[in-house]
């Protein structure tokens, strides 16, 4: 089975406090730690496990710039056969649909049986996989947390629905699936593995290779634009205990007792 995984390099929210820059139009990007978007990493692991069972190969693709090659190499160190970078000045500022359109033109050049994405990236939009499927007229399923290959033209999949229940369906290939975290246990990638693929060439494709009309992607083609970022104020906000640890513990014990939490 030929599997394509669409991945993205994002600021790692488990490693960073995300702060607003002074202009308020972007996040403070100095000293940010970037990594592969976590659900995408699960998608690559799932692709590798499918290929280990039924044969085939895994290609990882991303839309971005040279900086994003690091995640392609990381996933190649995991076992992906190929990494591909889709990069062009015309792609900068693409909205979700722009990214999906760029990926669609890359998919059209290949012969993939199965296309995986992570369920969502740092913007929480959960949109690219579903848009890509619609553009390709392929079946789609989101929040996938199990995949079984039934035959060369059909999968049995589980989706995560409310309350920990799972919705089981059959889906025809080729299709697009967005992968939920927890579907597998992604393998560890050591420095040694990354060094081993450090000099593997990564092909790069731009608008002309992909046959994309530049006016349909990037800033120019987008219908959805972020105007600014701001710090949200959702609730009334917690009463912050800011004494010494000992003082905080004393106060907390008092509060928990008052709320009936100490029996």
């Amino acid at each position: 089975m030929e599997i394509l995984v669409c991945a993205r390099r994002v600021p790692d929210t488990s490693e960073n406090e995300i702060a607003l820059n002074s202009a308020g139009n972007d996040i403070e990007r100095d000293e940010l730690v970037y990594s592969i978007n976590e659900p995408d990493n699960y998608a690559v692991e799932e692709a590798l496990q499918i290929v280990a069972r039924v044969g085939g190969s895994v290609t990882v693709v991303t839309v971005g710039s040279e900086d994003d090659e690091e995640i392609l190499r990381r996933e190649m160190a995991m076992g992906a056969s190929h990494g591909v970078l889709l990069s062009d000045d015309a792609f900068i500022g693409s909205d979700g649909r722009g990214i999906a359109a760029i990926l669609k033109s890359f998919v059209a050049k290949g012969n993939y049986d199965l296309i995986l994405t992570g369920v969502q990236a740092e913007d929480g939009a959960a949109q690219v996989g579903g848009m890509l499927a619609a553009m390709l007229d392929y079946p789609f399923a989101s929040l996938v947390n199990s995949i079984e290959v039934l035959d060369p033209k059909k999968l049995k999949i589980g989706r995560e629905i409310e309350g920990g229940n799972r919705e089981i369906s059959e889906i025809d290939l080729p299709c697009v699936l967005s992968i939920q975290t927890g579907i597998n246990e992604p393998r560890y990638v050591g420095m040694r593995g990354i060094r081993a693929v450090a000099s593997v060439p990564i092909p790069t494709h731009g608008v002309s290779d992909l046959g994309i009309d530049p006016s349909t992607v990037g800033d120019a083609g987008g219908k959805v634009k972020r105007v600014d970022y701001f710090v949200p104020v959702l609730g009334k906000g917690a009463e912050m205990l800011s004494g010494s640890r000992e003082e905080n513990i004393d106060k907390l014990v008092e509060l928990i007792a008052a709320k009936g939490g100490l029996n």
Partner: protein
Amino acid sequence: MPRIFAYVVHKGGIADDSAAELLAAARKIDPTGSVTAVVTGFGPNLDRISESLRASFGEVWKIANQSLDYPNAELIRKALVKVLPSGCFVLIPHDHFGIDLAPGLAVKLNAAFAPDILDADGSMGSNLNVVRQEFGGQLSAHVRCDVLAGVVVTVRPGAFKPAGSNPVVGLVVDKSVDVGPLSAGRRYLETVAAEAGDVDITRHNVLVSIGRGIQEKDNIGIAQELANVLGAAVSCSRPVVDAKWLEKSRQVGSSGKTVKPKVYLACGISGAFQHLAGIKGNPFIVAINKNPKAPIFQVADVGIVDDLLEFLPELTNKIREMQSVSAK
């Protein structure tokens, strides 16, 4: 102002809570216009939901089709594309169904897509301005959508408070014949219920809940010891289950359990909305997190910025001391 449609999710003929929230979101976008509900399904359940929606929507479009008896997003998308007028606004809940349906619907309607919105301004000509969150809720963003060709919006559950009912007597319009036969490349087989776990976290008054901040499986003992002295259970957020450190039955959230404790100790939990959706009954929430910007601090009653791996053992010791004193 373009016509606004709200896709109403229902089960057994009863509307999902999201229906009233979509109506509230629609009023925010267009305070004066009428909102049309769209429902799909088959048989008496569809008739019942269509009838009940007349009380809150000016018009109810119903699409009856045997293949829509189970809500398959691909079939529903095809049905909607056949009946919705071009340039309209479509509101859909941002849940497992909306995530399945909405992005592809936006593509097929050639409309803008505004996913997971928390707020909206009144529509200004060709633009709709919405508020979203990024980075797991650490930052919000104003987003401008060009809606000249329409827009598909998914609405975050719980973000729009249902307004007091504004009774109407809506008209039910049967759109079934416009849809015709439908087929999909994805076919529903069955629903597998969540497995019951060793501990039922929904029955506890106090929960010590852990998130990514617990860092490794071996540290769960620290939370369990605190739970032991409190007579509490240990629950968790999604990353702990993803890492296979605790069973799925311990997970609090929209894809896990809904809990109603009196006291909820959120330890190393960032506070993603999917997690908060599982905490009901307005408990006293204590947040302990070393990231002062963690969104959990916005919804907690009390917050402490500290390293939980050091804080929790000291808290446990303190409670133990008090208990041994009072036992004497």
